[in-house]
């Protein structure tokens, strides 16, 4: 069989290692793909634009309209704003095992939206509304963290998520 790398490399051993590294890259890429399909992971795909500099003057992201709302089907929509340096409202309470849709927008620069120990994570790009669909199986106290460097107070940018046992009731 003709080896296409013969044109650039005379050494047999070196060519073998070139092939091994290429095969390793494909194997790892394939594994990542399989893992993503098997765990039902999707990149956030919502594309909706919004003017971040006027966020507090919009209807959906007005200060009094933020927070948890219950939908007709029993699922929840949580509207939040990421702004230097916090997530607002600063405390969110949701029941466990309930579908939750987060709609998050940035009021200033690029932020990250991440709840450690859960699969809720996305980038919050100024000018866009980010959406995350998830549910939280384990009741407890969690944190929202910003994981995209956003300025000098980036390390102060956190807020609280409280997942209540389902028997404790619905949206609050």
């Amino acid at each position, binding site marked *: 069989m003709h080896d296409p790398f013969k044109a650039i490399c005379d050494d047999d051993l070196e060519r073998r290692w070139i092939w091994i590294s290429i095969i390793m890259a494909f194997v790892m890429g394939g594994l990542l793909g399989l893992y993503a399909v098997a765990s039902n992971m999707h990149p956030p795909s919502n594309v909706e634009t919004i*003017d971040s*500099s*006027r*966020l*507090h*003057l919009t*209807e959906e992201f*007005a*200060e*009094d*309209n*933020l927070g948890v709302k219950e939908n007709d089907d029993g699922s929840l929509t949580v509207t939040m*704003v990421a*702004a*230097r*340096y*916090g997530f*607002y*409202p*600063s*405390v969110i309470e949701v029941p466990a095992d309930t579908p939750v849709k987060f709609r998050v927008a940035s*009021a200033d620069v690029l932020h990250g939206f991440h709840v450690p120990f859960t699969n809720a994570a996305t980038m919050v790009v100024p000018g866009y509304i980010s959406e995350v669909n998830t549910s939280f199986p384990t009741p407890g106290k969690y944190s929202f963290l910003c994981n995209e460097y956003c*300025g*000098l*107070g980036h390390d*102060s*940018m*956190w*807020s*609280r998520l409280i997942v209540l046992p389902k028997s404790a009731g619905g949206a609050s």
Partner: protein
Amino acid sequence: MKPYISVITALLLFTPVVNAEPSSAVAFDLATIKLLKSADPQAGKALAEESKCAKCHGDAGVSDDPDDINIAGMSASYLFKQLRDYKDKKRDDRDMYKNVRELEDEQMADLAAWFASLSPAPANPDRVLTDAVRKLVFYGDPERLLKACASCHGRRGQGGQFDHPALAGQNRTYLVDSLVAFQEEDRENDIYGRMRDISKSLTEDEIEALADYYATYLPDEDEDEEEEE
């Protein structure tokens, strides 16, 4: 009877949505930034003299009365926002409302540019950074969702972008009053309740300690007299 109960419940439930009002009508969008950039400090100076700003805020933007704010050297964006908020009644103060209600946006931008161009009051050279204050100023307290003051107001309290005012060199009484006003929701013009959240997590002692740290030192008049004697 039941229909009435549901109607009343429905009305009560919808009240917050009907009342959904932004805490400030000012947005730092392109139009506002252009307005602030094109402001004329000299026109602001003339307007300040005409409006007698010096009566409360001092000749050079540094007030004699500790209840009033020192406005010299604050960012033009912060000053402009406060003036608009007084005019829009987003920040409640009868005297300031009377002074600004007939001003146009351009005039408020000119005033803001003028006071921003003045030298701020000096911070107290003898101020002491205790461990408790250092923690609040530079680290915050994650458990109480308390952000470090320095993250928005600058490491020296010199102020940050847009609506984050300078704190260093401010009147002590004004600092305490402002934090208490945020805490008690008497002042609500902080967009998304950022300062309301923070001040509610602070204790009375912490507010006093922070005010001590950031406040300027203005010599007491009695002290001066004693020295003269």
